[in-house]
């Protein structure tokens, strides 16, 4: 077999693999849109869930998702970014930091339901927070912290050493160098990582089932201590019902969920590109 043939074979194999992923995704999207698009209207979004499929809406689930998203962001962003800064800038040389580093990488690979069990034991039972929004948000925060920490570290690592040296040489302290130079320059990467992590949290179901998100919530949560449902829970519930009408509802809800994650990922890409234009070496 000559080299050119091998070259072409590999190229077509790679194209086939890429197409496989894209086509599967395309089939799924078409399927969902055919099933659910007709059901999707403003009323569907504004209505409360109901026993009757034609009256059921996703209002409480959307509000629950927004609550969870907001609370998770408030908890996970400061903790994750600060931990990333510590590991990259301060704790670099210690053995303790090494152990932490290995464990954080491992944490990112743990099945999400394990986080649910942890959340159930720690937040729901031990801390006595019950099946509340705050329990769910804390659990999801644990889940996405490794992603935020790793993204923060990578973004900081990408800042050229020369910028750091320039700042130190002008007499800046470590904190001034981090806050005035490193973080602004790394901001694009950090923001991108944070948004991608949050969009993962939005789609999570398993850990929330364990910490007690409800499947039927006829009210909108008012405080972080309230019970709640989220979109993936609502979808999960509808799909497991025998009536065909609920499957249509589920498809429509999936479209809404897809739009939310699509917008979030789009924002991440947009911010990254804008930042790259601003900060160039």
């Amino acid at each position, binding site marked *: 077999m000559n080299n050119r043939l091998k070259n072409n074979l590999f190229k077509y194999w790679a194209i086939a693999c890429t197409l496989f992923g894209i086509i599967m995704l395309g089939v799924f999207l078409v399927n969902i849109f055919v099933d659910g698009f007709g059901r999707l209207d403003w009323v569907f979004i504004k209505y409360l869930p109901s026993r009757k499929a034609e009256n059921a809406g996703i209002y409480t689930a959307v509000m629950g998702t927004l609550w969870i998203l907001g609370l998770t962001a408030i908890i996970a962003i400061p903790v994750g970014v600060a931990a990333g800064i510590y590991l990259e800038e301060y704790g670099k*040389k210690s053995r303790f930091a090494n152990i932490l580093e290995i464990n954080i990488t491992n944490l990112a690979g743990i099945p999400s339901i394990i986080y649910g069990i942890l959340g159930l034991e720690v937040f729901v039972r031990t801390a006595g927070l019950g099946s509340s929004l705050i329990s769910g948000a804390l659990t999801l925060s644990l889940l996405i912290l490794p992603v935020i920490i790793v993204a923060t570290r990578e973004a900081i690592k990408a800042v*050229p050493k*020369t*910028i750091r*040296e*320039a*700042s*130190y*040489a*002008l*007499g*800046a*302290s470590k904190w*001034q160098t981090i806050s*005035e*130079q490193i973080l*602004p*320059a790394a901001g694009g990467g950090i923001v991108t990582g944070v948004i991608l992590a949050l969009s993962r949290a939005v789609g999570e179901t398993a850990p929330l089932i364990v910490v007690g998100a409800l499947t039927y919530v006829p009210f909108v949560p008012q405080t972080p201590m309230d019970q709640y449902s989220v979109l993936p829970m609502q979808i999960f519930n509808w799909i497991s019902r025998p009536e065909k009408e609920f499957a249509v509802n589920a498809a429509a809800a999936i479209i809404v969920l897809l739009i939310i994650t699509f917008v979030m990922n789009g924002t991440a890409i947009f911010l990254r590109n804008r930042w790259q234009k*601003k*900060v*160039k*070496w």
Partner: protein
Amino acid sequence: MSYKLTTDNINVWYGNYHALKDITLKIRPNTVTAFIGPSGCGKSTFLRLINRMNDYIDGFRMEGQVLIDEKNIYSKRVRVEELRKEVGMVFQKPNPFPKTIFDNVVYGLTIRGVTDKRVLAESCESSLRQAALWDEVKDDLKKSALALSGGQQQRLCIARTLAVKPTVILMDEPASALDPISTAKIEELISELKQNYTIIIVTHNMQQAARISDRTAFFYLGELIEFDSTVNIFTAPKEERTQSYITGRFG
């Protein structure tokens, strides 16, 4: 006449590697001193010792004393931030911050809490004038420093260093990444700055050392081989190794 900088039996290790061996030298104020020598001879290490930039390197260990104005800069009482106000540094590759020209020049002031707009504007102008950059950028102070050419960026980095009002300026091959015209401008600038500052410059370019420096130190394998007036080093070196190096027999 007193000395601006004195070092006494400096030894430096990076881990097990003995990077500098028994370096003792004295530098007078308002002079330009050039450090020459082949790559890896320790001249940059020695330069970075003077504003303690080696402190960040893993495994760095040092013995001996570095005195500036007769004060030991490695004493526990010295705050590194204060030392670096006294001893500025310009790097090999121009490294402006991804900020405006103005913000770059006054960075050393703003991090020390200067907020008065008039003070900052005055400092910005006088520093840029000293660095011979003012006329080229005076209308573009709000533009990104990254839009400047390499030579302009390097003069901006010099202006940024001057704004802090140091007394010593360290330069680590400041012109090695620049074209000949920009290099000539930087060299001219160094000769002017000499009136107000003590300048120490590491260079690979021996003609440059000969053109701009008053005294030249030749480093080889972590040792200071010879330190004398530039004229003597280049016309009548006492050491054979200096002679071989400057005539291009190795290096």
